[in-house]
């Protein structure tokens, strides 16, 4: 898995460089989804937020009453930002697929809008299942792709052109299958739609002019059904907004 490691190291490095942009990003800071994930974990004494980024979810878990919250991320700069921004949160630099925690170490785990960067989602889910105690909760959220293969391919193409560290947005069915295979019972799933301002979405990763051209080219030639599936709006200067889907899943072990 040397390729996977290189890819993850590259992703971690890219996130470190954009720590401030992510902390200020409205998509990553606001929303009912964060409250819902935190509420699912609120009964835990100890929880880990995997791929915490700037620490919003870890901070929300602490605010929801979780006594000890560990903020884990592969980018040291992100962990430092999370720990500095949320004083009750303990930072650990860690790989989501090889978590450095003992079996049954936590009562709850969260992972919010990050797993599309993981090369091996099956290994990630297995790692979470290992560290969550029996009866514990996994609060999961990530971007998902439509079941239609052409729309799935379109979404993942634009995401990858915008941000080369994007590995794949998987389908809802993929995630439910992986969670169940790892021994989780999927209690609740919700798919929410978020409208993204096109310019802001590109700005969050500081996309180069070349990457912006690549994204624009994909949006200029979308597959049948894309305009409706992604609620694409266009103005005089091109795409103004589009919507993507996120899965929220509450699973118990």
């Amino acid at each position: 898995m040397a390729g996977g490691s290189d890819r993850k190291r590259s992703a971690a490095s890219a996130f470190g460089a954009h720590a401030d942009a992510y902390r200020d990003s409205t998509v990553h800071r606001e929303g009912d989804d964060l409250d819902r994930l935190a509420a699912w974990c609120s009964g835990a004494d100890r929880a880990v937020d995997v791929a915490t980024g700037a620490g919003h979810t870890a901070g929300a878990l602490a605010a929801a009453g979780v006594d000890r919250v560990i903020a884990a991320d592969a980018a040291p700069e992100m962990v430092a930002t999370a720990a500095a921004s949320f004083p009750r949160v303990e930072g650990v630099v860690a790989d989501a697929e090889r978590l450095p925690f003992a079996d049954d170490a936590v009562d709850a785990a969260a992972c919010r809008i990050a797993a599309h960067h993981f090369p091996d989602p099956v290994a990630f889910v297995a790692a979470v299942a290992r560290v969550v105690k029996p009866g514990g909760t996994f609060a999961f959220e990530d971007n998902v792709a439509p079941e239609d293969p052409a729309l799935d391919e379109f979404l993942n193409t634009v995401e990858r052109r915008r941000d080369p560290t994007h590995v794949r947005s998987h389908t809802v069915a993929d995630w439910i299958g992986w969670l169940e295979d790892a021994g989780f019972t999927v209690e609740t799933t919700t798919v929410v739609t978020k409208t993204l301002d096109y310019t802001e979405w590109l700005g969050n990763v500081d996309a180069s002019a070349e990457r912006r051209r690549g994204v624009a080219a994909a949006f200029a030639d979308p597959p049948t059904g894309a305009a409706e599936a992604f609620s694409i709006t266009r103005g005089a200067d091109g795409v103004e907004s589009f919507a993507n889907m996120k899965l929220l899943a509450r699973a118990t072990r």
Partner: protein
Amino acid sequence: MKESLMDILCDPLDKSDLDLEVDERDGDEIIEGRLIGSVTGEVYPIEDGIPNLLPPDMRDDE
């Protein structure tokens, strides 16, 4: 990191226990030091209070 975090930390390579070596502490907070895999011998640094438990293939050589 708080020293009590040692209760749940393990070596990411084989999940075995880690040994703690402290260079600087502030009460129960470990500021600088290292975690060493008791089986693998791998050394994981603690810098500015944060343990870096990335497997060696993901750590930047600095």
